[in-house]
């Protein structure tokens, strides 16, 4: 079975540093996958490579078997790969509903809805993420958690088959995280493959079936959350040699 997304030896350099260095893994349709790693591990860079914002310096990325390396971001989006930004990028002068509607107007090629249909779709997406009540507000009136929801909503409106979420939980308190997890589960249940880049372990353990750990641009581990998180190399990467030794009891 051809994987939905297949990364082979993906490499991206900035100056002399390889931010992503030979990363290889595949994602099957409908998975809900977590990508973790200490700061600077190359998670966002990897995401940018997939969505076409960065050109690869080596390797290939395949979508349903066809190479998408080098495609412009809008083409990758049209194929059905949606993404959010770590620092949200809303369309400031539009209302919440309009932001999401624009996502519905463009997005994946499977449909090209007319204006009215796009707005209707926006409403149902807003319902899904829990922003229905705030649909007519300007973006400036939203709190940070709500702006993150909006970011997700807009990406969902593009009818993605694969959704890449970049640190959606950053800065949220426990209650807000629970709400956000609800939202991610709801999106996943509609059949979208979800990849979560996260720092918050509760999220990974709570919702991901599989976790990939990156460190210094390379894959360190790939497996079920409870196994990966007990992996010594992972602990060492996150907490450092000394603490890992202490945990080991030595």
């Amino acid at each position: 079975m051809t994987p939905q997304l297949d990364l082979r030896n993906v490499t991206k350099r900035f100056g002399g540093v390889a931010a992503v260095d030979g990363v290889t893994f595949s994602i099957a349709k409908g998975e809900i996958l977590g990508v973790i790693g200490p700061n600077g591990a190359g998670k966002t860079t990897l995401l940018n490579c997939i969505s076409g914002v960065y050109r690869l310096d080596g390797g290939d990325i395949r979508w349903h078997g066809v190479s998408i390396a080098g495609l412009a971001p809008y083409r990758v989006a049209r194929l059905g790969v949606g993404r959010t930004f770590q620092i949200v990028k809303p369309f400031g002068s539009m209302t919440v509903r309009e932001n999401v509607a624009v996502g519905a107007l463009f997005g994946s090629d499977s449909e090209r809805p007319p204006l009215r249909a796009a707005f209707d779709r926006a409403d149902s997406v807003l319902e899904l993420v829990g922003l229905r009540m705030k649909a007519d507000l300007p973006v400036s009136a939203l709190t940070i958690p709500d702006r993150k929801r909006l970011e997700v909503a807009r990406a969902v409106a593009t009818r993605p088959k694969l959704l890449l979420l970049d640190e959606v939980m950053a800065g949220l308190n426990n209650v807000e995280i629970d709400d956000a997890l609800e939202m991610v589960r709801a999106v996943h249940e509609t059949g979208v493959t979800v990849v979560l880049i996260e720092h918050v372990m509760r999220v990974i353990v709570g919702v991901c079936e599989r976790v990939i750990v990156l460190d210094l641009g390379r894959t360190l581990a790939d497996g079920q959350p409870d196994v990966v998180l007990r992996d010594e190399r992972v602990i060492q990467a996150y907490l450092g040699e000394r603490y890992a030794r202490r945990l080991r009891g030595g």
Partner: protein
Amino acid sequence: MTTSQRWQRILIVLGCAVIAYAVLAPLTSLDGAQALNLPLLTDKLWFRLATITAMFVVMATAWNIIGGLTGYAAFGNVAFFGIGAYTTGMLIAKAKWPFLLALPLAPVAAAIFAVLVGLPLLRLRGHYFAVASLGVGVAVGELVQNLDYRGEPIFGGASGLFMPIFAVPNRDLYFFYLMLGAAGVSIAVTWAVIRSRFGYGLIAIRENEEAAAVIGVNTTAYKVAAFALAAALTGLAGGIFAQWNVFIDQENSFPIAYNVEMILMALLGGTGTVFGPAAGAVVLQLLIQFLSGSLPITLDLPFVPEDAMPVLAQVVLGVLLALVVIFAPRGVIDFFGGRSRLTVAYLRRSLRETSI
């Protein structure tokens, strides 16, 4: 009714009155109307000023598509005006085409030029794009004036290009309605764009180009299309101008001042709205004409000699530009659209937002 709603009503009524006046008043100059002893509301001067005003409505509204909606503040759109003017002018003067056949080629030529120039230029951001587009405006004008072929100026050179007068009864009225029609087309096009998928795409590009790209907007194609659309409309105005004025040269077809005037008009009226630039164009054009002494009402300043008036007018324009930019960056329509109220507090707040 709230104050803002009342202001909106007033503005709409005012707007309709102006449009009705503009459309109907010229009819009083027709022989048939004169035979009915209707008062003559328009004369040669009226037609000249009104046609120029309509011309600026076209240009300001067109600029708004690339500058206001898409957020790429082009500073050299006068190049398209001149290209339109010279396309029509050359076809009429050199190739002996009839006016109405030559006119449609003006927007086409301008749009083609916009696509060619836009592809590299629109990759630039901010300052770079602004000055590069300014450079285009200046350079095209200079090239048109100075390009020679075997010693002969191709486009008429410094002495310009003359066209035969377009023989039509009530010529002033004819060209006014033609330019007014172009203004109507500009506004209609803007109206259609703003509520279309294309328009939303443009606004998305303006608000956050990277986000627009990742949700599937082909930003390059959209930007170039917006640029070409603005160019076509501006070129149309140029084409009409050429035959109306009968004579074109670098000075009247590529005036650098037009670049800033059209932007100021859009800013004054409110960028990103359908009627804003048009309103700004009418108001500013009246002001400019008043300052240049072209209106029947003139100002007699005791200590300023007659010939210094146009220069003083430019000074006033500069001061006005500075004031508008400093105090009211969101434009006048912002007030009357109900989003803000024209109070000292608003001006002060606006100032605080932008100063250090």
